[in-house]
């Protein structure tokens, strides 16, 4: 499971919602060993932006040797990436992080906003295991994206803050509204959502795997910029900190403290 830094060719790039882009890269070495929940670092061509941008993997196709990244324009770096076209190249390093630990039994996948993309690869991988009942709950602020692609692998439920798609509110509101439950919860989204998920999982004694987002520099566990608080003293750091980029980004809800 090696990390590869490479110059990848962009096979296609599409706008899939307002400010949300889908980029497919030819990156054979990364596609060959990546799994759901892992991420890659993308590097800006403009040297004034020297830090990489960590982006989660939305689809991995080892046969075709491609990876798909769905990202939101959040600043100058992602804005630069959004101007790239098919045929352009981009420096990429990955796969990074631990990814989800896929369990048998029924699965509830929760994606909020730009936390939705990694859930698509996870739904695909769980579906391909054959014996997993997969439910997906997608929460949007307003405009929906990737929604139709989930149908192939799972039963899909929606929530939106403007009330135009599914339940009026967030993914927790959808969980309550539809009475959705399962053996394992997998979640990625904003911190308030992850906090609510942790509470829900602990109260109902359900295993929950939460995928975190944090500002990163190196992406490989060396610089200690992107830590989160752990419940117990971590065996690498020897303090109550875990590295989101290396020990995560996916953590068992019980091993982390959310503030």
């Amino acid at each position: 499971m090696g990390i590869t830094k490479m110059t990848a060719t962009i096979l296609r790039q599409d706008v899939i919602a307002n400010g949300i882009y889908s980029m497919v890269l030819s990156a054979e070495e990364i596609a060959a060993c990546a799994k759901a929940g892992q991420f890659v670092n993308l590097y800006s061509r403009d040297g004034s932006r020297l830090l990489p941008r960590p982006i989660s993997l939305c689809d991995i196709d080892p046969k075709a040797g491609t990876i798909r990244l769905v990202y939101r324009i959040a600043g100058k770096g992602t804005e630069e990436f959004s101007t790239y076209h098919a045929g352009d190249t981009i420096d990429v390093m990955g796969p990074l992080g631990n990814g989800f630990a896929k369990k048998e039994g029924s699965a509830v996948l929760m994606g909020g906003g730009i936390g939705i993309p990694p859930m698509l690869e996870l739904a695909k991988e769980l579906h391909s295991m054959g014996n997993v009942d997969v439910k997906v709950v997608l929460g949007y602020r307003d405009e929906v994206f990737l929604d139709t692609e989930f149908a192939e692998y799972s039963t899909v439920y929606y929530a939106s803050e403007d009330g135009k798609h599914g339940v009026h509110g967030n993914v927790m509101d959808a969980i309550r509204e539809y009475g959705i439950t399962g053996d394992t919860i997998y979640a990625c989204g904003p911190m308030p959502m992850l906090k609510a998920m942790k509470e829900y999982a602990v109260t109902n004694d359900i295993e929950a795997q939460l995928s975190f987002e944090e500002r990163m520099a190196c992406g490989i566990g060396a610089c200690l910029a992107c830590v989160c608080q752990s419940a117990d003293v971590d065996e690498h750091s020897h303090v109550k900190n875990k590295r989101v980029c290396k020990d995560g980004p996916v953590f068992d809800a019980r091993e982390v403290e959310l503030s």
Partner: protein
Amino acid sequence: MNTAVTIAGVTWKNPVTVASGTFGSGAEYAELVDLNALGAVTSKGVANVPWAGNPTPRIAETYGGMINAVGLQNPGIDVFAKRDIPFLKQYDTKIIVNVCGRSIEDYVEVVERLGEEPVDLLEINVSCPNVKEGGIAFGQDPKALSEITKAVKAAAKQSIIMKLSPNVTDITEMAKAAEAAGSDALSLINTITGMKIDVHRRRFAVANKTGGLSGPAIKPVAVRMVYQVAHAVKIPIIGMGGITCGEDAIEFIMAGATAVSVGTATFRDAEAPVRVVKEIEDYMRRYQVEDINDLRGCVE
């Protein structure tokens, strides 16, 4: 062609190391680059006990640089000695351990402990801007710097390198104080205290409010300070601050540095330290420089 340099009696095969805090203890980067290619590896700061560091966000990108306020999170000397030193000993490179503390006693405890360990040099961090006690307090007052340098020197088996802060009015005063107190070499510069405000969220970009600015944005300041210090002291200098390529390294050497550290550039390109070694050699071939030491301080 000779690229070997000697710092305080320790000869490195080439003049390139990594800046403390950007490279961990090398284990993560060893999966991506060959540590044998480096003159030395400088560890992240290590204290007498584990430190949890600062709250997040700990970093923010700025134009041509970044601000960090990690706060010297480290596992403490016991874990470091048991896990990280044996790891680094597998490689054919010199080992520099960066030492941090909150009091003189803390520093002395770590330095004494390292006396029993197979490490080559000790870099003493008296200049981290992100920890309130110790750190910067020692690095901004010549008297305090002199006191801690003497105490560390008396306790150390290895040669010591005091790492200087740029956040002072006259860095040569600090350099002279460290030299007079027995420091065998100097590292400069540490990060420059900075601040970034997120105007959309109306809050500080890093939780600590202030942080240390590093990266290409600070290089001209660092080159100037290395030049000034090289003219103020006789002990060797490890120059750092925004080095991303071989020509940057040569610039520091021409300003008077004996060796250089590559830091923030590694976040953009894991190969950067190793590439800088190669690019220094390219430069030497291009200008037919036989010995890297001939370039040191060549601009007067």
